[in-house]
């Protein structure tokens, strides 16, 4: 066993921290909101800066323009960025898309898209959910029909994060009707500017625009923008969802640690009834218990990371980690709101707001986290059925 960073990882962490000191994250212009997951806001400028350092493609094989560095450097980068509150919203999605393209992308995707991802120019939205296909994703009705060297996509996607500011959509479609419900799906990488796509914002309960819905009306997509084998997109997507749970939440632990540190600082400097909040034994215990939970969360993700690195099978580990990340985040936001009292309810920019109104934002955004990317309920069922071998409920046909 080994629970420390290797000398290489430590040296890389130093390099990242130096970069962040030289390029303070708050100076980068933002193009999409921070949805509270821990990866900050969507910022093309910040992504380009990461690209200039060579960090976006560092773990790709050399044949694809990478440096074949160990996967754990990506974890170091994510941790350091999250601890600093940097705006790297699209990063995990870009990496996942690149991995899929390297694994089974067409020549064109490899030639055109990988360099754009490496430079931090291409960012992606997911076109998976539909109005009537949420937890039951296979109920989706968006169809792609072959037309010579093109596919014509028709349908309606929803809850696509940052679709209005990202360059490409990953659109999951039905390409044939098969006896097995999970067959006949294919994935396309569709430039957001493709004619026929109408990308409309949905205002969230935070008051911000994070999600979009996308209407696809006779969208013509070249056949070589299909990602993965035709008709077997669901298998690819399932693997993608497993990795989505991992890469989409890995940075939650360091991001929560950052929030916890701010709350500790707040408790030390805020006097209530003549004594610092930090002297209240209940406050001390609750903050300390959160520190332990965040440390446990980090280790759940690192255990899953070791399995991913070693190519060991994953049945439930990322699902457990994702649910724990989201529920721990909700708990910390609740605790923060309680500690701040009436000030906790003040939004960013309000007169008298404390901690920049970040706790109110964290509280509101966290409500969506146990829903997005697989609800806590669906994932607990996954853990029980796939991880523990409990009998599945009868499937819909």
């Amino acid at each position: 066993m080994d629970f420390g960073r290797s000398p290489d990882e430590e040296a890389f962490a130093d390099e990242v921290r130096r970069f962040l000191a030289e390029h303070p994250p708050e100076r980068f212009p933002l193009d999409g909101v921070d949805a509270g997951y821990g990866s900050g806001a969507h910022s093309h400028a910040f992504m380009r800066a990461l690209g200039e350092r060579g960090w976006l493609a560092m773990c790709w094989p050399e044949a694809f323009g990478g440096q074949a560095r160990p996967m754990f450097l990506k974890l170091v980068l994510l941790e350091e960025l999250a601890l600093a509150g940097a705006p790297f919203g699209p990063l995990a999605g870009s990496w996942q898309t690149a991995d899929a393209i390297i694994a089974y992308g067409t020549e064109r995707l490899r030639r055109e898209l990988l360099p754009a991802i490496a430079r931090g120019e291409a960012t992606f939205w997911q076109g998976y959910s539909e109005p009537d296909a949420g937890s039951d994703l296979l109920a989706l009705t968006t169809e792609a029909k072959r037309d010579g060297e093109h596919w014509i996509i028709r349908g309606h996607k929803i809850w696509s994060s940052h679709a209005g500011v990202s360059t490409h959509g990953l659109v999951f479609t039905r390409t044939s009707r098969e006896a097995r419900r999970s067959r006949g799906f294919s994935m396309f990488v569709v430039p957001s500017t493709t004619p026929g796509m109408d990308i409309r914002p949905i205002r969230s309960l935070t008051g911000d625009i994070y999600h979009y819905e996308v209407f696809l009306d006779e969208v013509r997509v070249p056949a070589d923008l299909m990602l993965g084998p035709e008709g077997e997109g669901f298998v690819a997507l399932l693997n993608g969802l497993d990795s989505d749970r991992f890469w989409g939440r890995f940075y939650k632990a360091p991001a929560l640690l950052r929030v916890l540190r701010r709350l500790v600082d707040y408790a030390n400097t805020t006097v209530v009834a003549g004594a610092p909040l930090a002297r209240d034994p209940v406050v001390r215990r609750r903050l300390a218990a959160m520190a332990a939970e965040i440390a446990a969360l980090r280790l759940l993700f690192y255990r899953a990371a070791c399995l991913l690195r070693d190519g060991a099978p994953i049945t439930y580990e990322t699902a457990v980690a994702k649910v724990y990340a989201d529920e721990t985040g909700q708990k910390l936001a609740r605790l923060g709101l309680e500690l701040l009292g009436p000030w906790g309810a003040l939004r960013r920019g309000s007169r008298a707001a404390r901690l920049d109104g970040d706790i109110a934002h964290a509280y509101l955004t966290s409500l969506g986290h146990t829903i997005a990317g697989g609800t806590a309920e669906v994932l607990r069922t996954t853990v029980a059925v796939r991880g523990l071998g409990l009998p599945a409920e009868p499937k819909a046909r």
Partner: protein
Amino acid sequence: MDFRPSSAQQMLVATAREVLRKECPPELVQRLALDPRGFDDTLWRRLAELGWPGLLIPPEHGGSGGSLLDVILLVEEIGRAGLPGPFVTSAVAGTTAVLAAAEADARRRLLPALATGERLVTLAVLESSASFDVDAVALAGAVPGRLTGSKLFVPDAHVAHDAIVAVREQGDVSLLLLPLDRAGLARLPLDTMSGEKLFELTLDGVAVSADDRLGRAGEGRRPLAAALTAGALARTAEMVGAAQRVLELAVEHARTRVQGGRPIGGHQAIQHACADLVRDVDAARGLLYAAAWRVAEGLAAEADVAMAKAYAGEACLAVARRGHQIFGAIGYCEEHPLHLLHKRIHAASLDFGDTPLHLETVARAIGLA
């Protein structure tokens, strides 16, 4: 980062699991739970033959020179099997105190018999404050002189040969190693809900001399802290092992218990409960291994150990309680193993510092004023 035990550790765990499956079956655990002595001499000798009591002891004193991480993996299996007895008390905490405190001749005198399991030591630290904070030690110890007072919650004193007694000398803490049959010492049993063998140790003018010292006068703080750290981690491992067993039993029950024509584990209410058991056990285990690794590597680990113990105290107890709900009425029976595992977890959560004590350590470590 690497979560895999070494091949030697894997072998230790596999052997432990097999031996305990054969020689410490649930029936034996049941019998010992109802037995006033709660100690099986034959089984203890068997474990001693395997070298378990000597795991932490260097080879030159008859042990195998293992790390605390090795011991933690072994104790996890002990917790999983529900093996009662003085292993953590003597072979982990007591032995760690001796290793950390004793000077050369005392090491030569004490360690070989500890390594073979022939000699058992217990720790007498707590007093009426019931706090494992070293500063709470108040029993006045004039050496040479006579000791009068009492120590509380002393584990396994009925089978131990000696007690490591923490006393206060001129404002500091000293350790004494007292044979439990010395005149003036009495062991009064406490009746615990877990069946753990705890005692009040009363000292009525017990004569002590410089020969009884374990380490130098006023230098007991460091070895005691080392013993408490090792004990806290071992008790955490016991909780994690016991919670793992609850998880295994609960999942098996959910798979096989049929009501209304289908296994209860086919219902989401039970599935989600089982998913939470996995989360709690895995999360507690991660903190345990990381903390034990840091101790074994000689890195600063005070906050890590405190987090691991505090976390397991909450999470493993939650596993036990949820387990009762999954098992329904059968889990309420004395003959069912669930309550023994539950009670063991509870006892372990109190030993070597309860959750509030460890959370206070964490609170300071994260910078709360």
